């Protein structure tokens, strides 16, 4: 199931502006990779280029190679829809479908694609996904109520449940815990550790402890300067990055002596 991702010389543009420059890295299957770095350095942009969400923004484009298990994501005959069915995503801001109930939100990946499935089977998937996202107990009595009626943190967990309900091979998470309390955060981290057995996970986080706790590999992104594109400064074993980073900027950022 889990897939290996190799990025080579990736440049990501918004129109004429280069947002992320020359990223090369490898993401191992069955591992958690944390992307850290200051705001605006292109973590979300990079993450979105891994499942071809970046090109949805008008004039946005990508140059370079992203290989997923040996297949080039940006080869001309690649269907972005097929890519996204295997590489799921949780967004920085919760975005449940306002016209759908909690149940339908979780089942959205299946229902919207009109996949045929027995009700009991779907019920099972919804319950399992909600349990994994640590939301089941809070919503099990109101599955038919709108998903937008939940609190911000609950909505975020709903979006996580929605993403894992379709069982992608790779899960991209953009600051999934930024709206969550410590208990839910803990649960999501447990979930990440649990999912790691089968999935490849890439997570963006501003929380150093979280990166240290959940990830195997850490990648530090930084801006080259004001108005300059972001770039990958250093990537390595999380333990190494946090104890003996090779780069001065990494050390400063991790220890909070930044800017």
């Amino acid at each position, binding site marked *: 199931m889990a897939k290996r991702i190799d990025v080579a010389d990736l440049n990501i543009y918004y129109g004429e502006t280069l947002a992320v420059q020359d990223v090369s890295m490898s993401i191992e299957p069955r591992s958690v990779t944390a992307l850290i770095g200051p705001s605006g350095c292109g973590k979300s942009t990079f993450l979105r280029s891994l499942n071809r969400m970046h090109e949805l923004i008008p004039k946005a484009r990508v140059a370079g190679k992203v290989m997923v298990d040996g297949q080039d994501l940006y080869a001309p005959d690649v269907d972005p829809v097929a890519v*996204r069915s295997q590489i799921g995503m949780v*967004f920085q801001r919760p*975005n*449940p*479908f306002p016209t759908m109930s909690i149940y339908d939100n979780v089942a959205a*990946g299946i229902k919207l694609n*009109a996949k045929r499935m027995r009700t009991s089977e779907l019920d099972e998937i919804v319950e399992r996904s909600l349990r994994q996202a640590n939301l089941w107990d809070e919503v099990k009595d109101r599955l038919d109520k709108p998903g*937008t*009626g939940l609190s911000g943190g609950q909505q975020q967990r709903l979006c996580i449940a929605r993403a894992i309900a379709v069982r992608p091979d790779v899960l991209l998470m953009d600051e999934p815990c930024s709206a969550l309390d410590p208990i839910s955060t803990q649960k999501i981290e447990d979930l990440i550790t649990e999912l790691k057995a089968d999935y490849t996970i890439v997570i963006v986080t501003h929380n150093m402890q979280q990166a240290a706790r959940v990830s195997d590999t850490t990648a530090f992104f930084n801006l080259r300067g004001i108005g300059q594109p972001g770039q990958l400064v250093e990537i390595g074993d999380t333990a190494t990055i946090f104890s003996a980073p090779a780069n001065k900027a990494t050390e400063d950022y991790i220890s909070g002596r930044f800017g």
Partner: protein
Amino acid sequence: MNSPRTSVQPSDLSAVLSERLFTQGSLPRYAPGVTLAAAIVVGGVLHLSGVASGLAAVAVVVLYAVAIYGWSLAVEGARKAKNRVVTTVVTAAFLLALLPLISVVITVVGNGVGRLDVEFFTYSMHGVVGEGGGVYHAIMGTLLITALATVISVPVGMLCAIYLVEYAKGKLGRAITFFVDVMTGIPSIVAGLFAYALFALIFGPGVRMGVMGAVALSVLMIPIVVRSTEEMLRLVPAELREAAYALAVPKWRTIVKVVLPTAGAGIATGVTLAIARVVGETAPLLVTVGITTGVNMNPFDDRMATLPVFAYRQFMSPGLPPEPAIDRAWTAALLLVAVVMLLNLVARLISRLFAPKARA
């Protein structure tokens, strides 16, 4: 950094603060009422002494504004005084705008209520000379033609809006937007003549059919549907589309299953208002559908009666004696006003009941 930033000592500070009170004078609650009453009295005197009523009304407003400004300035200060003047201006403008509406409703109801009887709703004008008769045929005609126009306009308008919002890039999109804007300004008689010319090309001159009217009304309706649908689709956050894409939902499914339902209530409201806009059109129906006295339920064959054309005809060629026909015209007008109001209410109801809710 450790040196004191200001030289103000605590005792000075409290002295400064004590001068900056949160409270200030305010006019008594009866102040606007009393001022207005005084202004009205002056206006009344002016009117009695020969000033025209409209001018006297203007005088009342101006007097009130000046008086309340002076009084408020003296007691409450400049900001509140200005607020009171602006409030006066806004209220006066609102009443002025309301005046024609109220006047129309009163006149139409006053003149039209007389013939609002069962016969009016159940009879046509077939063989009616003088008193009696009804608009059953015209109601049916208006319903059929408006329904047909809606059936034509909604798919065309919605698909056009979907193209503009979801697919259009560059020149073609801008050209369509431009022409939709131009269409919004087409005079209704031109729409009617267009439909007539179109059908005359096919069926020969002198042709009259209900569907011609529907086509003419569509020309007026489509730009409204495009505009309102477009606006509603643009309100759907990009994040929702992205959420669907991230679940590997293809674009067309995302539009059909996520974007349209999210904008659904707004689109339905827009369509309802578009119907209300064209249901009272007279000129295009006059040249395409004409008028008859009997019931014709087939919009693909011959003339049909419609409420606006009926009202127009009864008023323009009432026959002798004219009173019964004029009464029928007023009642038909009343019916039209009622239909338009009802459609507006329905539109509000749709947007209230079916809009996506934030809370359960």
